[in-house]
């Protein structure tokens, strides 16, 4: 495909500082093959994110941007040097980065490279990224597959949800107007189907399998009731 036929790369700039944003946008507009679009438009190929003076906030924003716009390429702009902070941004979802000491041409080159699926690969950064991948892979557990598990009935799903919210057997019984013994029987069945021994493992597995939706807001969340009101030291099942 010749350059003239290639669709323009839609670039958006995100920054807390209006002047920086306008300067970057102005510098990019008029460049061949690039089209500057407003950041809130949501229809962009590449998003340039100004790191600013608060890297923690920029990291959080990067993670959000990754979730919201999974198809877009994210570039962290304004990092001081190629050190561990670069790795943090990559881990947060940045596909590229442009250092503070770069030129306007470097910025344009970075946008084009990102669009083509290319990333900067300074040896130090590569080494650090590989080390971080190795470290995280060590703790990663294989994700279980829903197809391997016997499906829960509606009632069992209901009860599991209540358990996840931190309710004990008695409260579940009250909520669903069934006896505690019935609750215990259902829980026993749930544990059998999920092939675990403890209710907290059942809840954990349910989240992993997507049987339970993770609450977006953690502030009101409960947890697995240890069985306050139930006998000390005994696991309910």
């Amino acid at each position, binding site marked *: 495909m010749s350059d003239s036929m290639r669709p323009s790369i839609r670039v958006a700039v995100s920054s807390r500082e209006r002047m920086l944003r306008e300067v970057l946008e102005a510098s990019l507009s008029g460049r061949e093959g690039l089209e500057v679009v407003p950041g809130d438009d949501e229809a962009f190929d590449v998003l340039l994110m100004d790191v600013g003076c608060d890297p923690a906030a920029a990291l959080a924003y990067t993670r959000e941007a990754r979730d919201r716009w999974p198809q877009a390429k994210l570039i962290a702009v304004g990092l001081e040097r190629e050190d561990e902070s670069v790795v943090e941004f*990559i881990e947060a*979802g940045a596909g590229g980065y442009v250092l503070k000491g770069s030129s306007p041409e470097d910025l344009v080159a970075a946008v084009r490279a990102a669009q083509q699926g290319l990333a900067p690969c300074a040896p130090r950064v590569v080494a650090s990224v*590989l080390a971080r991948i190795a470290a995280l892979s060590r703790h990663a557990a294989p994700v279980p597959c829903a197809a391997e598990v016997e499906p829960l009935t509606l009632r069992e799903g209901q009860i599991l949800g209540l358990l996840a919210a931190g309710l004990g057997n008695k409260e579940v019984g009250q909520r669903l107007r069934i006896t505690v013994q019935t609750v215990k029987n259902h829980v026993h069945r749930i544990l059998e189907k999920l092939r675990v021994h403890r209710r907290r493992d059942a809840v954990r597995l349910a989240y992993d399998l997507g049987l339970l939706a993770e609450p977006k807001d953690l502030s009101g969340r409960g947890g697995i009731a240890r069985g306050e009101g139930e006998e000390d030291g005994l696991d309910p099942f």
Partner: protein
Amino acid sequence: MPDSADGPGRPDETERAAGEATVRVAIVDPHQLFRECLAGVLAGDRRLEVTGRFASRQEALDGLPRTRVDVLLLVLDSAADAVCGFLQAVDEHSPKPKVMLLGRDEADERILEYLDAGASGFLARDQSLTELRAAIDAVSRGDRVCTPRLASTMYARLARLGRERRRRDKLDYLMLTPRELEILRLIADGLSNQEVARQLYLSVHTVKNHVHKILETLGVHSRWAAVQHAIERGWIADRRRR
């Protein structure tokens, strides 16, 4: 930050400072024509010395004990099986040569596994001879090289692992009851099980059970590790005395 595959602290005889003697290169490639031509071309470079030409990985392993090699250039063919096994076998040689991979598909995620298994770098076959020489030079000095396309794949994998770790952390947090978080906060303040029990009007036995469950949920082995875990993730404030 490691700059060689050998890890910190271990003297590496095959690393050289700038301006030192030639880099000894061995080539592993069943494609005879490419192998011989490449050997000839590299031999013409004053900074390099081609010390081995092997038609297969097995031949290379057999020849390594007798051959001084700083950089082993392994050309990946379509039969990319057992590369990790080869890398592990090379790893056992001392001094250990740096292994540089030359391959076709830069976005192949298996290459990341090879890099993890000990390969020092990867180059694509659509790059130039100049880039190859520069890469051999860099790798001999302990740097890790890869192509921009492979770096993109690598960064995507790190992002995925990062997301999964955050998700696991979030689930860990969900699995702790408010009571357990409270206990964790008190432990962070330095309270013993007895003091926690008294403060929360629980029996020591109950507190111990809660602590046990916390350790299990977080996958740690001590109270202090649990406190550290929670502080690192921002679940509780860091108010420990220094």
